């Protein structure tokens, strides 16, 4: 099925937005990083944005990389969707990632995933954007896919099957 789509990758700290039904937005290999999806409708057209969030706090230094940080990614993605014609009060979100990949590791290596997810939840709440589903935490990496034409979002772990994250409900976390 993926071969029929044009794969658009959001690498570390990158943001992608699309209303093209032929696009598949992907954040590969989310470990402590979090893939944040915010979507809305422009008229009857589904518009989705995906940010590959790396760190919880920009400390005011986000510069040209607002999608990289949890404290700036929500506002950045929401603004991009508004520019694409979506109504601000119709935006919704899901997220996946935020794992603690390194069992027993101390410091940032062990804590950054949870901090990323917590900061995104807070920023979504502050922005009034409902979080419809989340697959966060645990110790495994994930890949997040947004099928723009199918209006669905899936998540998978290494060697695992795709699991629907939205619209059929939460896949863990």
């Amino acid at each position, binding site marked *: 099925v993926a071969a029929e789509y044009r794969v658009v990758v959001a690498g570390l700290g990158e943001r992608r937005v699309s209303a093209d039904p032929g696009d598949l937005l992907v954040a*590969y290999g989310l470990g402590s990083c979090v893939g944040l999806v915010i979507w809305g409708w422009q008229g009857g057209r589904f518009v989705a944005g995906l940010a590959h969030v790396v760190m919880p706090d920009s400390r005011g230094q986000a510069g040209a990389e607002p999608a990289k940080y949890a404290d700036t990614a929500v506002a950045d993605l929401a603004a991009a969707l508004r520019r694409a014609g979506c109504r601000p009060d119709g935006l919704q979100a899901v997220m996946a990632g935020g794992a603690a990949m390194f*069992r027993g590791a101390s410091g940032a*290596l062990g804590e950054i995933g949870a901090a990323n997810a917590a900061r995104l939840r807070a920023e979504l709440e502050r922005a009034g954007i409902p979080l419809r589903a989340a697959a966060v935490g645990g110790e495994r990496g994930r890949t997040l896919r947004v099928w723009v034409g199918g209006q669905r979002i899936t998540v998978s772990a290494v060697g695992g099957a795709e699991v629907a994250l939205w619209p059929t409900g939460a896949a863990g976390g």
Partner: protein
Amino acid sequence: LPDLDLVALAAHALGDVSDRLSALLGRSLRAGPPSVALVPLAEAVRAFGSEEAPAVAVVVSFTGDLVGQILLLWTEASAGRLVRWCLPPGAGAALEESVVAEVGNVAGSAFVSSVADRFAWGIQLAPPVVVADMAGAVLGSVLPLAEAAPGSVLLVRTEFSAAEEQVRGLFLLAPDGPSLARLLARLAPGGPVRGR
């Protein structure tokens, strides 16, 4: 980057790593010529190839006069070969993980000792941490902690090979920004180690 001296430094240290790993594994395991480059984060995460490819990684953090991370990333098959060289069949997952951790520990300590001895620096290694998962998830979780410049990491990268059986592993050294500056200052023309 004035990377020629960094390449020479890395090549010498990786020679020490190869010797120590070969002794541990009882096989000749050699590191290829290292590449040194300042690489954007998103690109660095693709260093292993496919971001979804299953990999076995060992991460060794270091602190002191140098701060950063060393990663050894193996394909699943290569990690299996390393384990088979060291353990009898059916030794169990805990022992297998110990072998991979020890490979990282030996490689990390050999590399760091080589650099520390050259500059008379004090560098401490944290215990190795082993994880088996998507290569992109591992790299994406570690490399952002060692940004040498905004949005970029300094990657010292090489691949290992063994004569008897093919193994594919990636060695990455990712120092943070102040550590990179300290290294470059010592390697600069007229610096304390010039001409050694």
